[in-house]
């Protein structure tokens, strides 16, 4: 058990199916503390489904995952958040009609202590908490160079900036594991570089364990410490980026990705 306690996440024999169609079968792998683990594989390989299990949206048919030494199965998204599993969605899932800072403040929900009565009456504890939350949200926005956008309604910002807001929202609550579903999708090369640099910095400075789904192999192989390749819900390969790059099974599974691109 000591080995399991060392890793941040231990996925054990997880299977998931939708109406008889297998999305994930018997998947096992480990994510060490403080590493960036990339999940790659063609569309429909089960990557997003796995993230949905880890943050409690889906319950696996069988298997479990061990997070910080505790075996978990069928947890509720709220419980996942409380245990310190943060999440960013494919296509931003921000509260688009709200300001940037309000979006980030919602990310602090699990730390709230003041009751509704205290809030409604503006009692001291609620006021102290409101000030504290605002300060913490602003501090997190600074990490992303977003503090000048604090009062802007999210909908008015470009997609790349919105992604940074979503990262800030996921980060402000102090997660120990961050799940990122295609954080670079839909961005131009410059934005991709910027977000990738931010992810690397969060990982380095905050010792944050990150699981990330990404299709851009060039960036994945540079960013990740560890790559897990999925195909049709099964694990095809699992190892450091260099080993993955040279794995013939991986190359074969990536139809449309010429060898030259993989080697780049």
């Amino acid at each position: 058990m000591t080995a399991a306690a060392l890793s941040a996440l231990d996925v054990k024999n997880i299977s998931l199916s939708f109406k008889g169609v297998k999305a994930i079968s018997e998947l096992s792998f480990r994510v060490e503390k403080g590493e960036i683990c990339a999940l790659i594989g063609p569309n429909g390989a089960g990557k997003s489904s796995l993230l949905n299990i880890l943050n409690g949206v889906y319950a696996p048919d069988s298997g479990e995952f061990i997070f910080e030494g505790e075996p978990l199965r069928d947890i509720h998204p709220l419980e996942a958040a409380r245990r310190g599993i943060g999440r960013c969605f494919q296509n931003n899932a921000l509260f688009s009609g709200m300001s940037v800072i309000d979006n980030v403040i919602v990310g602090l929900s699990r730390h709230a202590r003041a009751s509704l009565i205290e809030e409604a009456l503006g009692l001291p504890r609620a006021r102290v908490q409101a000030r504290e939350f605002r300060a913490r949200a602003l501090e997190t926005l600074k990490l992303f160079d977003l503090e000048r956008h604090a009062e802007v309604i999210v909908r008015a910002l470009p997609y790349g900036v919105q992604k940074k807001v979503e990262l800030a929202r996921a980060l402000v609550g102090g997660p120990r594991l961050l799940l990122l579903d295609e954080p670079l999708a839909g961005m131009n090369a410059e934005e991709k570089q910027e977000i990738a640099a931010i992810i690397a910095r969060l990982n380095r400075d905050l010792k944050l364990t990150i699981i990330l789904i990404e299709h851009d192999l060039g960036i994945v192989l540079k960013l990740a410490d560890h790559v897990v390749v999925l195909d049709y819900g099964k694990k095809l390969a699992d190892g450091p980026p260099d080993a993955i790059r040279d794995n013939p099974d991986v190359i074969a599974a990536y139809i449309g990705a010429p060898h030259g691109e993989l080697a780049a």
Partner: protein
Amino acid sequence: MSAFLETLIGGLLAGTMYSLVAIGFVLIYKASGVFNYAQGSLLLFAALTFATLTDQGAPFIVALAVTIAALVVVAVAIERLLLRPLANRSPMTLFMATLGLSYIVEGTAQGVMGSQIRALDIGLEDRPIFLGDILISQFDLVAAGVAVVLVGALSLMFDRTRIGISLRAVADDTRAALSIGVDINHIWRIVWAVAGLVGLVAGLLWGSRQGVQFSLSLVVLKALPVLIIGGFTSIIGSIVGGLIVGAAEALAETYLGPLLGGGITPWFAYVLALIFLFIRPAGLFGERQIERV
């Protein structure tokens, strides 16, 4: 001209009474996308509880406090016994559940507290007063004042408090709110309790005007055109919709009534709502395409 103004002002003030009823619907629709059929029953339950307590000799403040406590208990029970087991079901399923809920609330309330009509005295006399040479209902004036205070308090809660921010987050994207640690069940308890309180305010005002009995739950029918015109997702929409319906009813009764043989008030608001459905189905302040129920 002063007759026209009098009709218009009287209509606008009466309209805020409709707004009060409509706001209860908006709160729950905003937070969960569900048209709460039981809002009228909650309103009846609140007014009935209050009237029963004052009949027993309880002072105003005590009756109010006990009724509020009862509404909070009901909200918690609804979340635990109805909403939580039905989490992730379609809005239509939830709508049907609120339909069943309305029978349970009405039946239980009348079973325990009786179904005879009760007078409700909240110390407001319905005596008209003169403002210049315009005659205005004092009661309607107070009702309008209450509506303004209520809307002010609700918007403070939505805009300023963390719980208000969470509430808007849940309304905007429930899945994302859940994933970043918002306790949705807690939010639902709050929303239903606040909708109950709004029902209490509306129930007291409507109840003291027409007595407290079963038919009080039917004032929600007056809220429907207000919601269609103002939009299901906007509190401001409820106010504007109520004003439009109230003013249009009063003006139509006065100026169209003689031409059509009178009796316009009961149906005019629905015709107005129908016209809005053709022109602007989401309502004046509605955010998204609403689902027809």
